[in-house]
């Protein structure tokens, strides 16, 4: 009886060590100083989009929350993750709706399928300004099927629309699936990290990049906080 229990325990340990010895990293992303005011976006040249917004939308370059929380910061494991070859099978979607890119920052794994959808009554021409990957732009009239693409190399790519100058977004193409993006509270969490040494990187489109080196032993949760300096303009 005891031998059987021991054998089962050993099997569990061998088969899924991750479950027993998985740590995590979590924390908050905040800013110091006074960020620039978001600016209203004038869509008068595209009435079909303008009428979808009762009040004009504002720029999303710097989005903040309560207690100096900073949103849309991509936090990921930049070294030590070793899951570069594990490409998630599902696609990520980038939507053009109301002449806005939704989400503003889209994170994906290298070689993961990207689907670009046009939900508007007008043509868009999405132009991701890739420098390491292949740069392309594609016209997408209303009612046409989604554009399917993928990126082979890790890169932060600025995305613009050739037809609508105010549209702006980002693709964060990473070599890992260990990422999170901070939202209203500025919180992020990176679970399922086996013990080892890691580099955690936090990227914001305007305030830059910061890194932190950590070591995870056992199944602990390491707390790492990032603080970015806001820009007045």
């Amino acid at each position, binding site marked *: 009886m005891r031998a059987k229990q021991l054998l089962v325990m050993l099997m569990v340990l061998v088969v899924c060590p991750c479950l027993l010895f998985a740590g995590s990293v979590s924390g908050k992303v905040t800013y110091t100083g006074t960020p620039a005011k978001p*600016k*209203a*976006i*004038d*869509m*008068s*040249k*595209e009435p079909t989009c303008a009428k979808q917004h009762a009040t*004009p939308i504002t*720029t999303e*370059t710097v989005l903040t929350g309560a207690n100096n929380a900073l949103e849309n910061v991509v936090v990921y494991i930049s070294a030590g993750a070793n899951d570069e070859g594990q490409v998630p099978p599902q696609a990520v979607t980038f939507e053009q709706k109301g002449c806005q890119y939704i989400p503003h920052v889209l994170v994906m794994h290298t070689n993961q399928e990207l689907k670009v959808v046009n939900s508007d009554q*007008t*043509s868009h*021409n999405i132009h991701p300004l890739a420098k390491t990957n292949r740069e392309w732009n594609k*016209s997408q009239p209303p009612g046409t099927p989604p554009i399917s693409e993928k990126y082979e190399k890790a890169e932060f790519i*600025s995305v*613009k629309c*050739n*037809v*609508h*100058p*105010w*549209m*702006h*977004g980002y693709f964060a193409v990473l070599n890992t699936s260990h990422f999170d993006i901070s939202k209203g509270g500025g919180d992020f969490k990176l679970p399922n990290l086996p013990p080892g040494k890691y580099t955690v990187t936090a990227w914001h489109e*305007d305030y830059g990049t910061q890194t932190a080196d950590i070591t995870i032993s056992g199944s602990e949760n390491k707390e790492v906080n990032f603080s970015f300096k806001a820009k*007045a*303009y």
Partner: protein
Amino acid sequence: MGKLFAVTIAIIAILSAIPIVMNYWGPPPDISTHGFAIDEQMKATMWEAGIAFLSSQLILALFVWLHAGRDRSYKLKTFPGGAKGLVIAAFVLVGTEILALGVVGQKAWATVYFDPPDKDALTIQAQAGQFAYYFRYAGPDGKFGVPHPDKIDEGNQNFFGLDPENDVPARDDIVAGELAIPVNHPINLLLHSKDVGHSFYVRELRIQQDFVPGLDLAVHFTATKAGQYEIVCTQLCGLGHYNMKAYLTVLSEDDFQKWLKEKSAQ
């Protein structure tokens, strides 16, 4: 066969003239101070060219009718002076017509291009880029900030590449996607292209001016009627040219000040 051809020429000439004489598709009402002169010039051109066109086509039809079907050996009368005479006559006739139009129309052209703008004209900078227009006002300090092309960041609404951090006059500049102007107030519009050739065309204002990359051009005008009018790009500039437009909003002086305040608060 020849007679049928003559009749066809005459019918086509008359049918083409009818819509113009009857003014079926006339331009929209003019809302500018210089537009009257331009419309008169257009009328004069249509009359002169119209009379020349109709008479030449009908005379051609007449000659074809008279001489169609004649034997090859029939000797037609030649133009007095032969070919040389014909060329000189055409030169004199057409030349006089065009010179006359030019002389008569020079004032209309000069009021837009050669006369300087009013001393109290409101200066607005218009920038055309693929595929939208953006307009900049100097703001309360009356000075335009310096534009830096390398600082242009459209996703962040910095269309003119202003540097408010280091350039104080740029801080209160107002940038908008529509051209709002006060009624009955002279406007000096500075035109600058961010990339390729575009054009600024407002039918009701009787103004059409190309944006030429590398040149800083200007047009000036005064709008006389409040309302919203379309500014359309009339120079092929790329795949979004069909969709490139902005709106000219002519407001009362009070409404215009309100609009400026609203925009500077954003």
